[in-house]
């Protein structure tokens, strides 16, 4: 193991890797700050581009985008009260009022440093827990993995949308679409309709970019077409002398930072709970524990610290079930699984054994990325502010072309570009009818894993009773049933 750690850190600490981490963080901040886009859009577009990079550099680059995107979303939240991502909604509560008081840069600095703090805490937990979790997961048999995936699907379906039934419907739809292609057990083509491009199944890029990125972009374009936007909102004026964030002010928020990081890390380990929930829980806990709760909502630095530390801490912890079990906790982790697979690495319990040096290289890259994030984020504040002025009417059409290029690059297939547009339409319909895109994509990503473990369960035990008789599988199934009964029949949702 020590050889793997040393080898991994050696692989990560290169100038080439550092360059791509800087690029990833910068792109992530830009995507997070740009109106109408998010780090998910950036991730989906850039995944195919990483095809040409080494696995370590590729994943480090993509993780940079995720980290940058989380803090980038806070920039419009603070400056114009329009969060760039859902997790930054909580940041508007204190970020915008502080900006209105003439201290926008101070608010952005606090948001950035809190984000980096949360990231660091969560990455340390990931590094400490990933290997032990993987060891435990190695003892899981097919029945345990099947029941765990069913639980993960139910949690994600229940918590990422407004309706459990609708969430499960799109999850099942995603699972069904994942069966298209050559059957891995028998080698026969399933529902390929004789189309060669479908032999490998529906392309991950086409479905990810189409449903997650392009459907959002096209929806916004239609909105702008029908209701043209007015002039850009004016940014608050400020004095440079009032923008300094002192060490004393930052130290006074340390307890809040640790508490929020802990909350975000815990939530990140559980699939489906989401970054937004972490941000709001962190905020609520900070307000309750604060000596000055009346200052919250009026530009409190503690309020900004609580939200940003919590929402950033989700990222690293999300990779614990991703690496140990191959089950992503959120959309970003699901996309990273796709990136792992493109580079020939199968996430799951054997990942640490078979690709230990790559995993430790990834951990080293994540720690490096946190330092880079603090540095680049701070230096680039004047640039990120200018990015906000970019009109949607120019940015969004360019993103469509980037999506086309992103899908065409790895496959050189116009069929896949057409498939991407098809899923764009499907994603648009799902958005408008309140079906969870996260559940759909998770179903597609983890469906093959579920099929594989289900088949193994049937081969080993002859029937599915093992899901209810095995000592580890049974609690997972009971929790699933509890969730279905508890959440399926109540009106108020946890995410409400």
């Amino acid at each position, binding site marked *: 193991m020590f050889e793997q750690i040393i080898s991994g850190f050696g692989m990560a600490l290169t100038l080439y890797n550092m360059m791509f981490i800087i690029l990833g963080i910068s792109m992530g901040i830009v995507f997070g700050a740009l109106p109408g886009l998010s780090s998910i859009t950036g991730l989906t577009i850039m995944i195919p581009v990483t095809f040409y990079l080494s696995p370590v550099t590729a994943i480090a680059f993509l993780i940079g985008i995720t980290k940058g995107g989380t803090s980038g979303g806070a920039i419009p939240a603070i400056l114009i009260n329009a969060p760039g991502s859902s997790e930054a909604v909580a940041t508007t509560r204190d970020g915008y009022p502080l900006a209105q008081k003439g201290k926008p840069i101070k608010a952005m600095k606090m948001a950035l440093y809190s984000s980096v703090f949360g990231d660091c805490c969560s990455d340390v937990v990931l590094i400490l827990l990933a290997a032990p979790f993987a060891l435990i997961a190695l003892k899981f048999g097919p029945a345990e993995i099947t029941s765990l995936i069913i639980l993960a699907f139910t949690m994600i379906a229940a918590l990422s949308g407004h309706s459990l*039934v609708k969430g499960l419907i799109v999850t099942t739809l995603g699972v069904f679409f994942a069966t298209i292609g050559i059957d891995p057990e028998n080698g026969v083509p399933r529902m390929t309709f004789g189309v060669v491009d479908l032999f490998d199944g529906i392309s991950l890029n086409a479905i990810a970019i189409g449903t997650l990125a392009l459907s959002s972009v096209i929806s916004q374009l239609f909105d702008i077409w029908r209701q043209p936007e007015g002039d850009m909102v004016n940014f608050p004026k400020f004095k440079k002398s009032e923008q300094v964030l002192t060490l004393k002010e930052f130290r006074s928020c340390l307890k809040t930072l640790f508490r929020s990081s802990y909350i975000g890390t815990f939530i990140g380990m559980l699939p489906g709970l989401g970054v937004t929930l972490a941000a709001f829980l962190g905020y609520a806990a900070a307000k309750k524990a604060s000596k000055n709760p009346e200052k919250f909502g009026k530009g409190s630095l503690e309020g900004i610290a609580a939200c940003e530390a919590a929402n950033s801490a989700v990222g690293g912890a999300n990779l614990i079930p991703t690496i140990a079990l191959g089950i992503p906790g959120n959309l970003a982790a699901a996309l990273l699984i796709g990136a792992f697979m493109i580079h020939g690495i199968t996430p799951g319990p054997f990942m640490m054994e078979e690709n230990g040096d790559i995993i430790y290289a990834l951990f080293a890259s994540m720690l490096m990325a946190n330092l880079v994030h603090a540095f680049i984020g701070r230096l680039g504040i004047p640039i990120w502010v200018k990015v906000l002025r970019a009109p949607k009417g120019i940015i969004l059409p360019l993103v469509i072309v980037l999506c086309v290029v992103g899908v065409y690059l790895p496959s050189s297939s116009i069929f896949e*570009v057409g498939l991407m547009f098809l899923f764009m339409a499907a994603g648009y319909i799902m958005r*408008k009818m309140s079906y969870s895109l996260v559940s759909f994509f998770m179903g597609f990503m983890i469906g093959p894993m579920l099929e594989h473990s289900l088949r193994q369960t049937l081969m080993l035990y002859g029937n599915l009773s093992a899901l209810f008789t095995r000592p580890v599988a049974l609690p997972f199934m009971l929790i699933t049933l509890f969730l279905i009964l508890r959440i399926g029949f109540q009106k108020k949702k946890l995410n409400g």
Partner: protein
Amino acid sequence: MDQQKNNAIKMIKLNIITGGVLVIFGLLAFLWVIPNYIPEVEVENIGLKPSFFPNVSVIFLIALSVILMATNFLKLKRTDSISEEESEENEILGFGRIEIINILIMILGTIIFIVLMKFTGFLPASILLISIAMYLAGVRGYKLLLISIFFPFAIKEILWRTLEVMLP
């Protein structure tokens, strides 16, 4: 509140319709697509049949869609009890004439783009796409012309020089 309640009722009706569409899709997949487009293989264990898992997922899809239709049908019968939270949730969602027109525009636009890309290449297709999209978004003048021509050329050059990938 009345407007919100109307939106909630509209969403309930849409849920019933989509449930129906999904049931039809599921039945089509179960009765026609899977039997005709997944070859049968002789295996000892049913779990190893190539059609097993697609059939299981489609059966679940049909069952869940029926549940969706049934629960929403019951809600429709009891519209007085629609909660304020449900009404607020459905305020900005919904699928009406505008969305159907948008879908038709998407389909038409996709066909034109793909045909152009296949027969004329990436550049003309992208230039047309960007210029039309920017025009509809309210961008006019030299910005529209400059960006819609420059951007695809720049992308094509960057990809060729850095990754040696040629776009169509």
